[in-house]
C-alpha cells in the first residue's frame, strides 16, 4: 500500500506539479508547432507518451545497472541520447510493420521526437531526482508523457478558439501561443504545494 502511495504521489507530481512544459520548459518546440488542432495535438501527445515511457525506463535501467556499476557516469549523456535515438527508430520500424494505420496517424511526429527536449530532459530529471526503483521511474516517465499530452491538448483547444478571435497581426502565431502558455503556467502554479 505504501509503494502504491509513493507511485501515485510521484505520478501526480510529474503530471500536475512539476509539469514538464509549464514548469520545466521542456518540449516547447513541438508544443508551438503542433498545437494547432486538437486531433494533431492528441496524436503528438500519445506518440510522446509512448516514447518517453520507453526511453525513461530504458535509460534508468542502463544508468543504474551499467553506468553506475562501472563508474562510467561521464558517458551518461552520450548513452542516453543514443538509447533515445535507437528507441525511436525501433518504435518507428515496429509500428510501420505491425500497425500501419497507427503509423500513418503518428506519421511525421516520430522522427521529430528524438530532438524533443522533453525526452532527454525527463531522463536527466530522473537521475537528478534520485529515483531509486524501476517502477517509480516507469510511472514517472508515463506521467511526464501524460502531462505533456494534457498541456498540448489544453493549448490546442485554446488555439482553435483563438483563430476566431481578433489577435493583432504582430502577435499571431508563436507570440500569442507563448503568452497563452504563460497564463496556463500561472494557472498550474496553483497545484504547487499539493503534496507534502
Amino acid at each position: 500500500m505504501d509503494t502504491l502511495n509513493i507511485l501515485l504521489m510521484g505520478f501526480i507530481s510529474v503530471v500536475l506539479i512539476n509539469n514538464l512544459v509549464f514548469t520545466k520548459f521542456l518540449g516547447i518546440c513541438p508544443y508551438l508547432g503542433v498545437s494547432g488542432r486538437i486531433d494533431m495535438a492528441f496524436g503528438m501527445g500519445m506518440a510522446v507518451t509512448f516514447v518517453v515511457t520507453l526511453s525513461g525506463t530504458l535509460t534508468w535501467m542502463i544508468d543504474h545497472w551499467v553506468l553506475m556499476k562501472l563508474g562510467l557516469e561521464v558517458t551518461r549523456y552520450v548513452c542516453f541520447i543514443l538509447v533515445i535515438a535507437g528507441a525511436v527508430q525501433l518504435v518507428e520500424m515496429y509500428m510501420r510493420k505491425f500497425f500501419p494505420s497507427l503509423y500513418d496517424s503518428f506519421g511525421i511526429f516520430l522522427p521529430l521526437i528524438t530532438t524533443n527536449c522533453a525526452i532527454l530532459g525527463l531522463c536527466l530529471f530522473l537521475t537528478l531526482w534520485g529515483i531509486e526503483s524501476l517502477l517509480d521511474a516507469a510511472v514517472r516517465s508515463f506521467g511526464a508523457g501524460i502531462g505533456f499530452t494534457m498541456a498540448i491538448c489544453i493549448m490546442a483547444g485554446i488555439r482553435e478558439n483563438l483563430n476566431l478571435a481578433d489577435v493583432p497581426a504582430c502577435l499571431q502565431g508563436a507570440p500569442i501561443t507563448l503568452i497563452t502558455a504563460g497564463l496556463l503556467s500561472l494557472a498550474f502554479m496553483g497545484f504547487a504545494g499539493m503534496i507534502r
Partner: protein
Amino acid sequence: MSKIKQFVQQSWLLIVASFFFGLLIAVTDAGLSPRIEQNKVNKRNRLVGALLPEARNFVALDTEIQIESAGGKTEKVEVFKAQSESGQCVGWSFNASGSGFADKIELVVAVDAKFEKIAGFAVLSSNETPGFGDQIKGDYYRSQYKGAPAGELKLVSIGDPKQIDSKIVAITGATVSSEAVVEIVSYFVTQIKEQMQKKGIIGNVQQQAS
C-alpha cells in the same frame, strides 16, 4: 563475409568516431575530475565555515550513522566533525533534505561541539518561489536558527525573530517553505543526536574533547 564487409563499409566512420570521441571524453574527465571533486569539498567547507568560524578542516566520521527517513527507509547520513587548527572539535555538520513547497530542499546544518545548540544552516539547493519561499536563504529566517536548541523546533506565525529559542517565526507569505525547513532541521538534528549518543560519539552529560 560480404555482410560484414558491407556493415563495416557503412559504419566505419561511426566506429572510428566513437573511439575518438570516447578518448576525448575520457581524457577531459581524467584531467578535470580532481578539480571537480575539490570544488565539491570547497563548497561544503565554505558553507559550514561561515556557520562555524573556528573550523579549519572537516573529517568524516568513521562510524556509519543511519537514520530513518520520512518514508520509513533507513538512510545513511554523512556527519562531518569540524576541527579547529589545534585538532579540537568545534562542531558537527551534516546534510539534511526533505520536501518543500515546490521541490526538494537540501540543507547543510551545523551544530556546536556538544550537539546542544544549532550553529545554523545553509541552503544547498531549493526551488522555492522567488521572493517568497526563496527567503529561507535570507538573513531574517536563517539568523533565527543560530544558537537555537538542538532539538524539536516549532514554527510560529507571529513572534520575535530576534529571540533565540526553539520557536521559529515564519516568513510572511511563505508558511509552507518555513514549515518545511523547520521540520527538516528538527527531524535530522534529533535523529542524528540520538544515533550519535547511542554510539557514544557524544556524551549525554560529559563532552569528549577530541
